[in-house]
């Protein structure tokens, strides 16, 4: 316990410094303090003018409320999780006028955030505008292809054709993994489509790709999978509707690219994602594809700010491609269970080498 106190001291000092840095920055915007309590977010009703806003969240004694989310409808615009008793955290959003929901943890009531005033016009930057338009188009293309590929896959499942379903599985996975951070931004959709067995909460039904993956590869059967297949089609359809209505900010593209790499590090390199089919490298490549797309679109803007960073990121993408090359077999990859620990380490290190400079891109393109 005493050691924990010491660690907390370091965290507290870190936050102190972080906020000092923020106030030096004229673009830091307003600060809004939120306390996490067993009765939800305090204050439960908030009003603040539009513009860049930093939420500073502290938990002083709540075991139920351990996060803070700002939601518009069911879309999570920003969040900070795992703020347990005694900890603090913060995140920033550029708030547009309107009414939002705040949420601080399962079993606590939701709150309201009203943003007043005029919409904050982002500085005109044709390169960033073009990047955002390009990304919007990319996500739409992928989600349309996802719907088609998923339908072909689920048709095979419903028809009880195990071999055909196995063959069609990867094509659908690729489309999903390329745009995973977008899907994740729509709250419950990602768990419904992509949950692993251990992600499912007690009392919830396990649905989505991996439920069917398990049936196909470990049981060699589609028994009982027809309703899961139907639900998957439905959820993918819902994702398409949400993507149609979504809009993006430039920093989101960059951060989404970093998230894709984090996905690779967290669940692909470990072999957890596709634990029955061992198609982890297919997902790995798809995550990298999505990250690269965002980077390619942002590159003109980045070139103006920091061409050396752009070159480094590009060359590190090359490093990841080179690390993947030995395992490529045409459009697909070797069974990941045949990749030994030393080889996995090389893949992991190539991803880390890319992630480091890539994490600099978001803050660099939007800096004043």
């Amino acid at each position, binding site marked *: 316990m005493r050691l924990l106190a010491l660690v907390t001291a370091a965290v*507290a000092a870190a936050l102190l410094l972080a906020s000092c840095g923020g106030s030096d920055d004229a673009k830091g915007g307003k600060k809004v303090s939120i306390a996490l309590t067993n009765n939800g977010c305090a204050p439960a009703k908030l009003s603040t003018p539009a513009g860049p806003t930093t939420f500073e969240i502290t938990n002083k004694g709540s075991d139920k409320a351990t996060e803070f989310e700002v939601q518009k409808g069911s879309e999570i615009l920003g969040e900070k999780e795992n703020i347990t008793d005694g900890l603090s955290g913060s995140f920033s959003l550029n708030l547009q006028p309107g009414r939002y929901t705040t949420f601080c943890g399962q079993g606590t009531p939701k709150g309201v955030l009203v943003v007043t005033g005029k919409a904050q016009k982002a500085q005109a930057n044709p390169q960033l505008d073009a990047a955002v338009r390009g990304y919007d188009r990319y996500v739409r293309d992928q989600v349309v292809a996802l719907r088609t590929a998923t339908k072909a896959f689920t048709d095979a499942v419903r028809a009880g054709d195990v071999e055909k379903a196995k063959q069609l599985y990867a094509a659908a996975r690729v489309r999903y993994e390329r745009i995973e951070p977008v899907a994740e931004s729509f709250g419950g959709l990602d768990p419904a489509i992509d949950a692993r067995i251990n992600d499912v909460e007690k009392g919830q039904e396990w649905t989505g790709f991996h439920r069917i993956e398990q049936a196909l590869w470990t049981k060699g059967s589609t028994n009982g999978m027809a309703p899961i297949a139907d639900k998957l089609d439905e959820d993918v359809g819902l994702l398409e509707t949400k993507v149609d209505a979504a809009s993006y900010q430039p920093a989101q593209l960059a951060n989404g690219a970093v998230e894709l790499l984090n996905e690779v590090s967290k669940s692909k390199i470990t072999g957890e994602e596709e634990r029955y089919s061992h198609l982890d490298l297919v997902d790995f490549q798809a995550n990298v594809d999505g990250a690269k797309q965002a980077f390619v679109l942002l590159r003109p803007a980045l070139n103006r700010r920091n061409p050396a960073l752009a070159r480094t990121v590009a060359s590190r993408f090359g490093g990841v491609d080179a690390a993947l090359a030995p395992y490529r077999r045409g459009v697909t990859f070797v069974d990941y269970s045949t990749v030994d620990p030393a080889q996995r380490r090389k893949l992991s290190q190539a991803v880390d080498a890319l992630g480091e400079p890539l994490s600099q891109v978001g803050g660099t393109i939007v800096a004043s």
Partner: protein
Amino acid sequence: MALTRRALLGAGAASGIAAAGIAGYEIGASSSDEEAVAGTAVPFTGRHQAGIATPAQDRLHFAAFDVVVDDRRSVQELLREWTAAAARMTAGRPAEPSAPNALLPPTDTGEAMGLGPSQLTVTIGLGPPLFDHRFGLASARPAPLQPLPLLPGDELDPERSGGDLCVQACANDPQVAFHAVRNLARIGRGTVVMRWSQLGFGRTSTTSRSQSTPRNLMGFKDGTNNLKAEDGAALSRHVWVGSEGPAWLRDGSFVVTRRIRMLIETWDRASLQDQQETIGRTKTAGAPMGERHEHDPVDLRSGAIPADAHIRLAAPDTNRGVRILRRGYSFTDGFDDELGQLDAGLFFIAYQRDPQQFVELQRRLGANDALNEYIKHTSSAVFAVPPGVRSGTDWIGRGLFEAPN
């Protein structure tokens, strides 16, 4: 639990800042605490790199790295960045100046904030493979910088041996040492990958007369007759590279590291007499056998010390006067799940003017030492350690990279 308590005591005793951190964590440190913090910093600049003759700190994080790029400039740039970050962290400051905006990742990972410098030293070394064909350094390789020959009793794991570069971070707070290695690894990402790393939780050597002799995991006082920082002439003779070495390495040294796994379960069932005869010292007082006090001279002629006792075979008189500066740490990597035993021992670190000094000693020890029954060497590495930096613009290894070829 003992480890946790010890970690706190160590940090508190060394700097007085741990206690202040607990009391003041809501409001941050007061100005008098900051003065106390400044007092615990080891100077970064100097003739030699810090972390060699510096009084041995309580904690270690050692890491070896492999370079994954093939251009010399990147290595040079990395050493420059590492030097700057090491200088900052040694002074208790963040690894790099803060990021210009909150949308960028922090430039320092943060876990050392409020812990003070804790006498951190960061010592950087260059391994034999750095001098292969990749970076045009082959002709600059110091002749003694070769992978160590296979020595008697070696059971080396190649994955945990060797490396292009090494970083030795020592501090009186384990989190400060970890923080230093973590941030250098972060800065190096894309240029280097970590090859292996070792944590040490307690010093097993004394490198200054101001320090008392610690005990190793065998429960014996270790390093009583080590070279000491106060022995300037002996250090010049045995530790610092002189005119025999290339200009870029003068006032530097060579470091040898050996992960020595102790077969703790076997040792613990040896009788006290066996243990004492194996080491050549009494367990409680640490006196040479036949003597009464720890610092009584070791009399190799008295017959009290067995022929195969560790201190006899390691004594300079047995080895034509050869001495080394030991700076090792007790380690545990938890549990050996293959054998179902504690995975613990001594992470041996020695600095010497020529690695041959260690090789000669280990040839004799590896072949004859009674201790061999209870230990095995599981990793081995050697690095050339360039001299210290003289100014804020200098960097470790500059003499090597900027030398006219």
